[in-house]
């Protein structure tokens, strides 16, 4: 009864994947927003843009990603109250985002 399952599974596993999706993580530490990026294969992006959006999805600023795949910038207290979304586009064309809620920020900033 379950022969199709086996067929589907075999077809799928036959193709080895070389996945390298971008993963973005952001947190707040000592009133500084820290953005970290990494590809799923472990490599670090060497260039890219970091866009910071407020709760209304308005673009607040665009900053360059560091060559180590990270970025740090001072936390804006006004933005902190509503949270922010961090969008990253790498030079290779991969995109990802991370959402920081006011609760996340409060935990990280010790407020």
């Amino acid at each position, binding site marked *: 009864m379950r022969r*199709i399952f086996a067929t589907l599974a075999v077809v799928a596993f036959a193709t080895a*994947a070389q*996945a*390298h999706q971008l993963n973005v993580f952001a947190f707040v530490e000592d009133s500084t927003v820290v953005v970290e990026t990494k590809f799923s294969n472990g490599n670090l992006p060497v260039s890219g843009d970091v866009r910071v959006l407020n709760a209304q999805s308005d673009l607040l600023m665009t900053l360059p990603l560091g060559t180590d795949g990270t970025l740090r910038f001072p936390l804006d207290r006004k933005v902190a109250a509503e949270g922010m979304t961090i969008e990253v586009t790498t030079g290779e064309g991969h995109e990802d*985002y991370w*959402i920081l809620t*006011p609760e996340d920020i409060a935990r990280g900033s010790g407020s």
Partner: protein
Amino acid sequence: MQMNTLCRRSVLGMLLSVTAMPLAAQDRPVVATDNYPLAYFADRLGGGAVDTVFLVPAGTDPSFWRPGIADISEIQSADVIALNGAGFSTWPTKASLPRSRTIDTSAGFGDRLIRTDTVTHSHGEGGEHSHAATASYTWLDFALAQEQVKVLADAMARQMPDNAASIARERDVLLADLDALDTRAMVLSDQPGAGPVIASHPRYHYFAAAYDLEITALEWDATEDPTDAQWATLETMIADTGARHFIWEAEPSAAAQRRMSALGLTDVVFSPLANTPSEGSFIDRMRGALDALESAFQEN
């Protein structure tokens, strides 16, 4: 003086009763989910004593939903955050979710997940490469849906110990409903006209695997009429597979249905229900889909 005191007491009493109302509402346990089937299961398990939060707007594919900051805040505060897993949605990997209250309802049957064709594309200096994919509509195998219900029920009982007894009772009723669907689906392939099926979208991997059906999928947009090129692809697929049945993921236009009929295919609408249906419940809609398929398989 007495009057003033009474007034003050009355006002204070009113204030307390008014402020108590939202508190009482907030005290109800909350389950947040990333798809409709889990929201339906949570609602059934809660038996009216639990609030379910499923924030994906109607008409939006929950797999591609991007939540707002307020959405994540609401989800973070839920007592249980139930995720389908199997790569169903990406947003849970793009925000902090409390590990102790977040469950992957398909993690227990990882060895039964179906890997699908990989997506290959090219950009930058890396050349052509592939991203692995996993079929994620696990609940269309009603036996797997039952496993997801058990995981959800356990998590709800753990987080809501006062409701544990009623959750266990509701779980058994829900499992029986899903078992009935599973039993019905098992005999579909025994129908005299059962044979290869073409689907408008690749949603039915688990359904096909569980119920011994051969389903080949197109990549048609559920909200648009197929183009001439897409009809031509379908004709080729009919020739290749010998299919006599077609599954629409969503209600097609009358014109599309006429054209399908002209191609000699018996078509049925079988929504996988990733998002909330405009009418009917999960169980009702799945029963309806099985009725339609059984009827179609008896016709040929």
